[in-house]
């Protein structure tokens, strides 16, 4: 049995730096390893378990629990004093689409002047070398759903499910979902009122349905049952919707050919439709879309007033991705915003992930802080929060399930990806941080622009040479 260096030894900056160098010297490879004696949270909503073991082999979790025997041929890390969790799954973010938010040339979050909308595909723009990817990875974020912000139309385009591994391949599933804005924002985009956005949406879905029938486009081949687990392959080839075809369309067609093609799998329920919506009445209108388009696979994003219609959302079986700490009437569609929103929806039976945290400022790595705040609410009279396990699930297994990766990501369960984060304490606590991060069993470098700056400015000594020589 080969032992990796004790985790505690890696917490000193010198050891971490040496470890980083060692990593850089050899190509990243999956390791078979076991972490023992740790407090383990599996991410499935259950409470953390002390003195537990996690075993990773071949890039996957093979066992986890209290009485797990460690095979003799895997490396063992003594996890005493640490917590072990699945990697954080950021449910809606734009990581990899920008370097500096306010530097427009570096920012591919939205395409307000584009002639296309629904056809836009974030997979073509993602940059795994973005510092925000590296910073988030160091914060324990291992997977994410990346969206393209609606700007030229209510349709933002097609998002992707990605991993944050330090390698050139970021995209796990391209064209994983379509995002549209309804509510106040969608209304402005569509021409000035909610009536315009709803009419535009219906027309678009009908055009897509007809166009799909005419062209014989094979959407994605997945199930068309709403809410069903998406089993389509992650290894998609070129988008067969972006192909030349001569299908004639009516003279009053509003969608470009590509945009219509992109919506074919949406109207067929083969690609989830993320609807950004906040107000209770807007949520009801969104849910009602399935009366006309029964196959739609809806996910609500935002839903500040979701708690007011929680029973209806639960009955519809539609999951929600919410920004959990919004408690201000930031707009007239968020008058009932409250930090108890997530807790109340969850209590009503709604599947809730947290995400959509303001990008560039409130970053995905702070998902843990947000989840911790939901736990804090359980101690405030009149407020609704979540248990620790439930709160952690909102940033791990639940967003993974919503993304169609239930049981495969965001959870420490046999067969799931070997995304493992070792923390120096309770991961939801402000004082804690990842010590080591594995993605698919591959240990990840935690070095980035910020950590390099940190080390350069550990002291301000320039007596021998300027700081520029300190690297």
């Amino acid at each position, binding site marked *: 049995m080969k032992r990796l260096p004790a985790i505690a030894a890696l917490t*000193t*900056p010198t050891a971490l730096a040496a470890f980083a160098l060692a990593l850089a010297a050899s190509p990243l490879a999956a390791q078979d390893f076991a972490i023992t004696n740790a407090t383990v949270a599996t991410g499935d909503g259950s409470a953390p378990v002390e003195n537990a073991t996690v075993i990773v082999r071949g890039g996957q979790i093979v066992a986890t629990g209290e009485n797990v025997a460690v095979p003799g041929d895997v490396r063992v890390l003594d996890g005493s004093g640490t917590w072990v969790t699945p990697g954080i799954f950021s449910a*809606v973010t734009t990581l990899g689409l920008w370097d*500096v*938010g*306010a*530097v427009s040339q570096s920012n591919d*979050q*939205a395409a307000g002047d584009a002639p296309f909308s629904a056809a836009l595909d974030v997979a073509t723009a993602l940059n795994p070398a973005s*510092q*925000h990817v590296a*910073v988030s990875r160091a914060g324990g974020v291992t997977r994410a759903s990346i969206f393209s912000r*609606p700007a030229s139309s209510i349709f933002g385009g097609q998002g992707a499910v990605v991993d944050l591994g330090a390698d050139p391949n970021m995209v796990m599933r391209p064209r994983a979902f379509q995002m549209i804005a309804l509510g106040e*924002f969608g209304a402005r985009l569509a021409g000035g009122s909610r009536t315009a956005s709803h009419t535009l949406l219906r027309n678009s879905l009908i055009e897509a349905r007809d166009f799909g029938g005419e062209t014989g486009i094979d959407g994605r081949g997945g199930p068309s049952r709403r809410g069903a687990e998406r089993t389509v392959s992650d290894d998609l080839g070129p988008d067969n919707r972006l192909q030349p075809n001569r299908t004639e369309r009516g003279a009053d067609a509003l969608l470009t050919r590509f945009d219509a093609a992109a919506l074919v799998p949406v109207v067929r329920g083969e690609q989830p439709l993320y609807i*950004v919506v906040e107000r209770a009445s807007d949520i009801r209108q969104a849910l009602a879309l399935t009366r006309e388009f029964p196959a739609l696979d809806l996910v609500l994003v*935002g839903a500040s*007033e979701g708690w007011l219609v929680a029973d209806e959302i639960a009955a519809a079986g539609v999951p929600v991705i919410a*920004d959990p*700490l*919004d*408690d*201000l*009437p*930031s*707009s*007239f569609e*968020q*008058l*009932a915003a*409250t930090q*108890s929103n997530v807790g109340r929806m969850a209590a009503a039976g709604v599947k809730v992930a947290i995400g*959509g945290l*303001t*990008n*560039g*400022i*409130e*970053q995905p790595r702070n998902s843990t*802080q947000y989840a911790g*705040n939901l*736990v*804090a*609410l359980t*101690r*405030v*009279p*009149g*407020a609704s929060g979540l248990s620790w396990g439930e709160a952690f699930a909102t940033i791990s297994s639940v967003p993974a399930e919503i993304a169609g990766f239930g049981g495969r990501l965001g959870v420490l369960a046999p067969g799931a990806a070997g995304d493992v984060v070792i923390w*120096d304490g309770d991961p939801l*606590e*402000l*004082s*804690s*941080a990842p010590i080591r991060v594995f993605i698919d069993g591959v240990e990840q470098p935690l070095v980035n*622009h*910020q950590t390099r700056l*940190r080390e350069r*400015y*550990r002291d*301000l000594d320039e007596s021998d040479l300027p700081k520029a020589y300190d690297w």
Partner: protein
Amino acid sequence: MTLRATILAVGGALALAACTTTGTDSDSATATPPLGADGEVPFASTYDAYPGAPTALVGATVYDGAGGRIDNGTVLFRDGEIVGLGDASLATDGFTRIDGSGKFVTPGIIDIHSHLGDYPSPSVDAHSDGNEATEPFTPHVWAEHSIWPQDPGFSRALANGGITSLQILPGSANLMGGRSVTIKNVPARTVQGMKFPGAPYGFKMACGENPKRVYGGRGRSPSTRMGNFALNRQKWADARKWADGERDKRDLGMETLAGVLDGEILVHNHCYRADEMALVMDMAREAGYKVSAFHHAVEAYKIGDLLREEEVCSAIWADWYGFKMESYDGIPENAALLQQAGACVVIHSDDENGIQRLNQEAAKAAAAGRRMGMTIADADVISWVTLNAAKAMGVDAMTGSLATGKMADIVLWNGDPLSVYSRPEKVWIDGALMYDAMDPKRKPVSDFELGQPGEGDVK
């Protein structure tokens, strides 16, 4: 999800932010505005403390805000003032005892950088009152004339953040944005009813990207950083001449600048980059004023020695990063590195949500430093959001720490305030209980919220 907020954050509103500090005697501040024809200070505070019972907080862990910690402490307050601080042996006769066992007590949390009221919720255009972005110099405007006292954000800051005092600044579109105002976080029908009695005015300046972007984008000066400095230096030279003259003709802008040169108005300078902060400190020396605090200061860690020597505070976020070019070198260890250098650290929000969690942001910033190997006591971390902020705002003689004779601005937390799992249980402002988690009625509901969905909800 706040798609629109994302746009604002990236495109502008959030990117527009600011900061200051000096050891000025706060009492002199009342002399700054010339008296009106009625012989009175204009827009004078009408705030009076609300009634409170003589109270003894006993059994809690007490952080005094000045770096002190008392286990099983006792805090006594009466008639709006702190009258005793000590351990369990302190007599509590005549006080209503509140058992704080297992809980924590801190001074009221202070946000040095807020736009509550001048960018209130709902954040519609009709409420956008934070930037008089029509010319690069607007030293004549006063933030208090923009504040909407009914902003629901005040109550969230109180209930979730334990905020008892805050400085409302104009925005950072302008090189000189105008006067700030410091308020007590009490609901009031008028701004005057919130004004912190005796607090000096602050003066908002902004360097870097914002002024050059806002005005350069309109094809006018400043469009570069050198333009920023050229315009500022000329303005200060003009102000010096005015200040040294008769001061007889009313000029609201010059009155503000003269107040700065007189040391009565504290400069809060929005400035991100280390090199630019050093230039601003040189400009201040040339002009004859002092910067009280650099706000946003994401690169302050690169010049902790200079900031210590100049006694300039850095008011910063814990970890905001990369949203604009001048924030690209932000690091979570900023606060800790400054503390290590012996410079003054303040954690600020500049955000209606962040102000509800300043304690959490301070905790994160400290944790980042500890992971580097620095020793930072929890009691010192609390000072980042209490006494240090008060110092940079010139109100430290009155609030910011638990000391006999100071205002009874106090938070009782239901757990360690540096833990994510803790929230304020009770908040007193000048000895009056203004928030009580255990009493649904002891929580303000603004006029705007009446009759609306979620009215009176715990939020």
